[in-house]
């Protein structure tokens, strides 16, 4: 097996990445210009595993609208979150920072109102801004600066409920009898777009689905997928596998097949809501000048390496469905990109595309060049971090390095041994190479990278 990540290559790619940053800042802002600033519709789902879309090759899940979005935009094959847990990842998306910088390190640590969000910066840049949907960060509701519309919920510690979820609309709680949350939020999103269509706007539409409990909307029938096979899932996904060794808290109780199909139905229901947003953009005649991004906070393990839920550093948990469409400013639509993009890149990219400055404090980089189909390498590796969480979720603290070829994981304060996987050969088999000749050959470079990222982490 070829071993490619040599020191020379690493240095070369680091220089490349550096050059990308320097040269990138000198490129004229061709994608945006004053009054022609693009609208932004950012759609975030919850726990949507990257390969659970028709366009991503799932054997039977139906996602025609996401497939359409990918056909008209760029589908990123290598998009990742830097912490695969709801609150930290959401904070990373909205701030452009790693969890160790924005401070929301797990689902128990509070949001700091001093954090700057890209919505605040877009507002300063002349945008009308709306946050509609799941906030789900611990502590009291945030005092988000620069929002023209803020609709969210606090039920079940911010997880919300699928039916009749009370919404907090610009600070006032309103009962929502008889409604299904994804449709309700999309209704508000459409209303926001209709009101703001004449000025550049940024809509942040954040869904509860497809987070557990997997309760589907009335129009997605129980029969959907009921005859499909779950043979594509790893062998570990036996009927009660969601209830062993602490996995029980991930919500995969009792019949795994039943839960899995409900999960897939929820993804299809989210797809329907994406379709409604796309249709409305067409109807309003603003689709050409609107950037639509679809992604999620983290992936989902369904028996992979014996685990359910997320949190672990494996691709099934960290890799994201990630699609960007921008008819007016994107070159060669309908393509796939292998560039490595992260959730922390969303904020700087949107600011970049809006023609605004990217603050120094952001850890992510703009991937505007990828949308312009320029042959530049954004990065060749990234650091994954997972902090201590409430013990029912008995995943240890993790530091990991993901390169294009390898995933190296170290568990902190844990009895678990380090793991090393060749991603090219082994996405599903989880064969730890750490004590093999191949593993020993690559390990020093990966450890060096790990130390590099740790130094960055320790110095903020």
């Amino acid at each position, binding site marked *: 097996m070829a071993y490619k990540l040599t020191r020379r290559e690493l240095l070369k790619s680091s220089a490349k990445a550096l050059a990308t940053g320097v040269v990138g800042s000198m490129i004229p802002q061709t994608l945006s210009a004053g009054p022609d600033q693009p609208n932004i519709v950012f759609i975030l789902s919850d726990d949507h595993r990257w390969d659970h879309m028709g366009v991503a090759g799932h054997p039977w899940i139906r996602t025609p609208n996401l497939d359409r979005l990918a056909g008209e935009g760029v589908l990123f094959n290598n998009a990742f979150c830097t912490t695969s847990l709801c609150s930290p990842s959401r904070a990373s998306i909205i701030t452009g920072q790693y969890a160790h910088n924005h401070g929301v390190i797990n689902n128990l640590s509070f949001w700091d109102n001093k954090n700057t969000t890209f919505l605040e910066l877009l507002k300063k840049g002349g945008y009308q801004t709306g946050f509609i949907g799941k906030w789900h960060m611990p502590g009291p509701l945030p005092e988000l600066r620069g929002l023209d519309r803020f609709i969210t919920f606090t039920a079940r510690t911010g997880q919300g409920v699928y039916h009749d979820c009370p919404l907090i609309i610009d600070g006032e709680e309103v009962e929502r009898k008889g409604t299904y949350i994804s449709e309700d939020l999309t209704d508000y999103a459409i209303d926001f777009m209709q009101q703001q269509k004449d000025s550049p706007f940024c809509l942040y539409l954040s869904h509860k689905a497809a987070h557990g409990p997997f309760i589907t909307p009335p129009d997605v029938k129980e029969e959907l997928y009921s005859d499909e096979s779950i043979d594509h899932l790893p062998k570990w996904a036996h009927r*009660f596998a969601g209830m062993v060794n602490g996995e029980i808290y991930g919500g995969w109780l009792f019949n795994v097949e039943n839960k899995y199909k409900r999960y897939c139905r929820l993804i299809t229901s989210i797809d329907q809501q994406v379709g409604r947003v796309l249709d409305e953009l067409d109807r309003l005649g603003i689709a050409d000048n609107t950037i639509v991004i679809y992604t999620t906070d983290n992936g989902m393990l369904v028996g992979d390496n014996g685990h359910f839920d997320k949190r672990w550093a494996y691709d099934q948990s960290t890799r994201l469905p990630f699609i960007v469409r921008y008819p007016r400013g994107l070159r060669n639509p309908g393509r796939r990109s292998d560039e490595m993009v992260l959730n922390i890149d969303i904020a700087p990219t949107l600011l970049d595309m809006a023609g605004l400055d990217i603050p120094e404090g952001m850890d992510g980089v703009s991937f505007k060049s990828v949308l312009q189909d320029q042959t530049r390498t954004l990065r060749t590796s990234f650091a994954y971090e997972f902090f201590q969480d409430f013990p029912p979720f008995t995943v240890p603290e993790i530091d990991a390095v993901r390169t294009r070829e390898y995933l190296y994981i170290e568990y902190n*304060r844990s009895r678990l041994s380090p793991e090393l996987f060749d991603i090219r050969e082994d996405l599903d088999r989880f064969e730890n190479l750490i004590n093999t000749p191949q593993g020993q050959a690559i390990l020093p470079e990966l450890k060096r990278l790990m130390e590099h990222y740790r130094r960055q982490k320790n110095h903020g």
Partner: protein
Amino acid sequence: MDKSFTAANPPDSIRRLFVAPLIAVVIWIALQMSYDLLGYIDNKSIYRTLAAVNWVLLVLSTGFSVVVIYPITAFMGAPLSIRILASYIVPLVWCLKEFIRVSGNHTVVEALYYAIFESVQLLVLISQVALIGGCELVYRWFKRKSNGSGPFLTPGPIIAIILSVIPLYFILIYESGHVFSLKLRMIYRYLFL
């Protein structure tokens, strides 16, 4: 049938009394080990079927071994304290196993908090009280049937059942257990973060 636990033959009685819980623990350990060993089966459908069956047996063994252990120890003449202790052996061994597992990733105090107070553990530990109350009533019913005398409905077992059902309601049913779980998290946050 009802052999008294007398001072005349304590070693023999004690041995007999602890045979049932010991066998239950051995069965539990065997099921735990077999579950792990099944992982070596490569055939997906065979593994899934066997693992699911093994899991059901493991859960029955963990949560419901009391319904076998309690009557056996009772009919062997064990006093109430010994019956209760024997009934708790398997759940406590399971809690110990969870403690060891979690202490691999968390501090000892956190692991202890998890191993005793987490919803599922509490569910099992508290439900044993209800099951013991139920088993005691069944035992009395059988005893009365064979001897024709003895108390049946006394406050003890009834109170035990009621007292355990109330917390079980909050752990399991009220707001789908979410409120209880949230309280545990808040206490955890206060104590450890």
